[in-house]
């Protein structure tokens, strides 16, 4: 252990919900995107799942909202170090979308695409089983544009760059391909509990 002389850190209580290397952002919700926030309205928004699926499908705003509602109550973790506790997102579980398109058994990975062109890659298993959502509400209000509104992907058990803002679609693949940040030195999976921040972690 490389102790820093005179460093004590903030007064703290052990929080078992805080992954290693993270701090509690409290009420703050920092915005971290490398791109210009798009002017994207609900009427412009669409969401498509294609690739290795039986029935590729595109939902518009109303069609997506016609699926069964599902909320996430819990925590989120950003690779830059902050975590945010007790957040509530409203939307639809990705399971409901996958139920329509029926993934092939050969599908192992997913590239998530944003309306801006941003991409991120995920194992398909991280998006199924009630662990991922398309969300458009935050704390009961419409999701703000700078946080990915009108709708974003939510994969709260991974670092938040995987939760692509302004989500446009998912393409199912039988192999892994790096997305935007993964091609810029970040980890392929991004599990906060294993501190999978950068390539090589």
């Amino acid at each position, binding site marked *: *252990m*490389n*102790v*820093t*002389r*005179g*460093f*004590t*850190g*903030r007064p*703290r209580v052990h929080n078992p919900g805080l992954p290693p*290397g993270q*701090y509690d*952002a409290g009420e*703050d919700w*920092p*915005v*971290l*995107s*490398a*791109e*210009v*926030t*798009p*002017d*994207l309205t609900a009427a*412009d928004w*669409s*969401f*498509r799942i294609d690739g290795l699926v039986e029935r590729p499908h*595109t939902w518009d705003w109303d069609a997506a909202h016609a699926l069964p509602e599902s909320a996430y109550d819990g925590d989120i973790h950003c690779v830059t170090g*902050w975590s945010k506790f007790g957040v509530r997102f409203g939307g639809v579980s990705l399971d409901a979308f996958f139920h329509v398109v029926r993934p092939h058994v050969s599908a192992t990975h997913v*590239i998530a*695409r*944003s*309306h*801006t*062109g*941003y*991409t991120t*890659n995920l194992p398909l298993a991280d998006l199924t089983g009630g662990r991922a959502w398309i969300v458009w509400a935050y704390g009961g209000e419409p999701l703000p544009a*700078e946080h990915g509104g009108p709708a974003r992907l939510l994969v709260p058990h991974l670092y938040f760059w995987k939760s692509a803002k*302004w989500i*446009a*679609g998912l393409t199912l693949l039988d192999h892994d*391909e*790096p*997305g*935007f*940040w*993964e*091609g*810029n*030195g*970040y980890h392929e999976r991004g599990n906060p509990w294993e501190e999978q*921040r*950068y*390539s*090589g*972690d």
Partner: protein
Amino acid sequence: MTETVTTNPGAPAGGPGGPATRFAVPGRIAVSERVAAVWQTATLAEIRRETPHAATFRLAVPDWAGHVPGQHLLLRLTAADGYVAQRHYSIASAPDDSGHIELTLDHVPDGEVSGWFHTVARPGDTVEVRGPLSGFFAWPGDRPALLIGAGSGIVPLMSMVRHRRRRALTVPLRMLVSARGPEELIYASELGAETTPVFTRTAPQGVPVGRMTAAHVAPLLAEQPSGGWEAYVCGSNGFAEHASRLLVAAGQPVDRIRIERFG
């Protein structure tokens, strides 16, 4: 130091039927996994005050593999009880072979890590760093660069300015930087003709006071260099939103704007 410019094949255009909100800005450089994964001990060599709230910390990192201007690192401090605090900081210095890098840190109110640097740290202290990290906000010095920053958002941009000077590059570069007043303008004595400061609260006699506007951005976009500008925006989220919208409104393509925001 790697300066390989790569394209990013994993960035297709936006979704079908979507509006014209293209981004897909390719990464600028390849990032070394090996270098980025290793924690190194850095020894504080020198502290220089820049403004009442910001100081530059020069670190000796003998095995530093080099960086590209605009890249950042991850820094960690460890308390005696094992508690660790990690923060990302942009690198302020230009790439060189001195075995040193410089960080310029604002003293954030209640800042756990910046507080230690500003009130406890002295030459000879050691911290740990890993990096350089990320290939996105990097500028190897190959394309005309339009830099827009506010507050300590000038830090990665100054690395670019210093790099251009050190290498005597002739590629066009202009910088717009916003500060509350002249005494809070970081690196003020180093800024040259490439830089236009914008003062939001106080300014020298005869210099206007106010936030950055279209009138600051328009002249720079009117004098487009060959191949156009690559824009780099760094600052708080509020500033980054404002500045990036000014750029878009003035005609800068969204896929040629790179943004680094801090909370």
